[in-house]
């Protein structure tokens, strides 16, 4: 297969070959020094937390937090700590690697700490939240009547009770805010800070409107009630929201009635959240209800990937070969061909691995897996 961008690839890759050893060594030394120097700082805020802000349960699980390994987390799902006001900015590291920095004067507490996330209840003031994005993450911030649903992002959130006002300023990623009159929630992305106020509160200018950069979301714009397509939600990392919507509707009904785009979005959301059986059901539903289409073929490929990841190489290879039958010129043909070889090899089925290798070389004699395929045939 001739890639029309091969020339570009070669040009840039040759450029990479110009190595600068001295610069590399200097950069490495700088990194090692910085990484080892910053390690104690990861622990120190936790000690600070234990004596100032977050006592009780967090202190009890301090060893867990200091260890920092999600896998070592004790069952602290119901952990709750009393609110306290910070006399200085306070950093909190959570077992999932996420961090919260409470600004001076902020009041709040953390609850529902698990290996996959936590809930910050912000009573007053500003917090900077940095949540690591990964499948299955379950993070939120509660402020007054509002809840900010987080899937992996960095943002500032400020809450004041009188007059009731929530301000969200995104640094990276998106969050979804639910609360009074926000229906299924309003997504907030990077850009100008958004201020939310319940309509019962008297209209006030945003607290920092002197900069002219604030945007008031009260009353919530009509678009806030628009039901975003599931594909859009998945693209914004709102995997949990898609899963919750599907569960609220009834998964069986969803699989039987929703369109193929929604089913693929559900499969993506389930895959990214580690809900493999649900992903599999959604992909099978696409194949069953919408056979012959491009999405059905993609579903076939992804079923192979799921089986691959689940350690079922024979089943995976079967799906890849089915994809090759169904989508002879599909965009994943090269990947499916290569994966079929690897899967048969992992399954210990040498004759089929050889057949897959021969098939690959017929289609892609110069493909990225050609040498691996030849290696199998040469054995």
């Amino acid at each position, binding site marked *: 297969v001739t890639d029309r961008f091969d*020339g570009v690839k070669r040009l840039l890759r040759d*450029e990479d070959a110009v190595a600068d050893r001295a610069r590399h060594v200097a950069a490495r030394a700088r990194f090692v020094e910085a990484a080892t120097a910053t390690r104690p700082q*990861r622990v120190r805020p936790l000690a600070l937390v234990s004596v100032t802000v977050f006592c009780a349960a967090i202190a009890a699980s301090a060893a867990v937090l200091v260890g920092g390994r999600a896998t070592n987390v004790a069952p602290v799902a119901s952990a709750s700590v009393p609110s306290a006001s910070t006399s200085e900015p306070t950093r909190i590291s959570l077992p999932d690697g996420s961090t919260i920095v409470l600004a001076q004067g902020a009041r709040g507490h953390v609850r529902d700490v698990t290996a996959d996330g936590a809930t910050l209840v912000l009573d007053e003031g500003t917090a900077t939240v940095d949540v690591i994005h990964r499948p299955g993450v379950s993070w939120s911030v509660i402020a007054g009547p509002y809840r900010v649903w987080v899937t992996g992002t960095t943002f500032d959130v400020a809450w004041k009770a009188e007059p009731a006002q929530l301000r969200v300023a995104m640094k990276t990623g998106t969050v979804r805010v639910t609360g009074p009159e926000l229906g299924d929630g309003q997504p907030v992305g990077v850009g100008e800070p958004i201020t939310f106020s319940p309509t019962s509160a008297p209209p006030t200018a945003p607290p920092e409107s002197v900069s002219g950069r604030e945007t008031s979301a009260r009353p919530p714009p009509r678009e806030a009630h628009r039901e975003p397509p599931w594909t859009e939600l998945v693209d914004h990392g709102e995997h949990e929201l898609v899963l919750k919507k599907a569960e609220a509707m009834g998964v069986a009904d969803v699989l039987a009635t929703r369109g193929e785009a929604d089913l693929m979005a559900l499969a993506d959301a389930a895959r990214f959240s580690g809900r493999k059986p649900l992903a599999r059901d959604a992909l099978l539903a696409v194949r069953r209800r919408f056979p012959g289409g491009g999405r059905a073929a993609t579903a076939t490929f992804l079923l192979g990937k799921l089986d691959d990841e689940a350690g079922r190489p024979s089943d995976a290879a079967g799906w890849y070969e089915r994809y090759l039958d169904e989508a002879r010129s599909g965009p994943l043909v090269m990947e499916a061909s290569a994966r079929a070889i690897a899967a048969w090899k992992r399954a210990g089925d040498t004759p089929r691995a050889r057949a897959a290798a021969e098939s690959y070389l017929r289609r892609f004699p110069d493909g990225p897996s050609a040498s691996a395929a030849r290696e199998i045939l040469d054995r």
Partner: protein
Amino acid sequence: LPTAELDDAMLVAGVVAGRPAALAALFDRYASVARTVVARTLGSWTDVDDVVQEVFLTVAKRCDTLRDVTALRSFVVSVAIRTARNEYRKRTVRRWVGLEAVPASRATRAHDDDVSEQVRRVYDALGEIGVEGRIAFILRRIEGYELAEAATLAGCSLATFKRRLARAEAQFEALCRADPMLCRLLEGGRS
């Protein structure tokens, strides 16, 4: 074991424990790929080392969240993409408000003048594509990742990745066709 012989699982364990030798080995093993991913996303080698530092500090800090230790390379690349994407946006904002000038010429590492010019034009063309499209193009067409893995690294669904890639390819090809030097590149030659 000498650090060069550590597999990724042992390397991760060493990094999590904060062992300097493991940190150095991590940098030796993956700095090159991180550097190229960052440079290509930013469209320039200028200040790449600073961004790469940030990438590795993030990797070192978050290594303990890595569930599949065999996916260390992908983890480094995904952090590199995320960091470069943020840096690109920061630079764009700084340019908008006049705090940072648009570089008059993009720094390249090629020694040959013609090749250097060609590389510069490629980066200029890539610079015309939005950052998400550029990331898709780089992951798939330059780094050679499979579509599914590239989509995961870019942090989007496969369908979205394919849309971004198709758009980026069309844009990039049109820009190349308009430049005789790059047009030859598309046909497989060098200037």
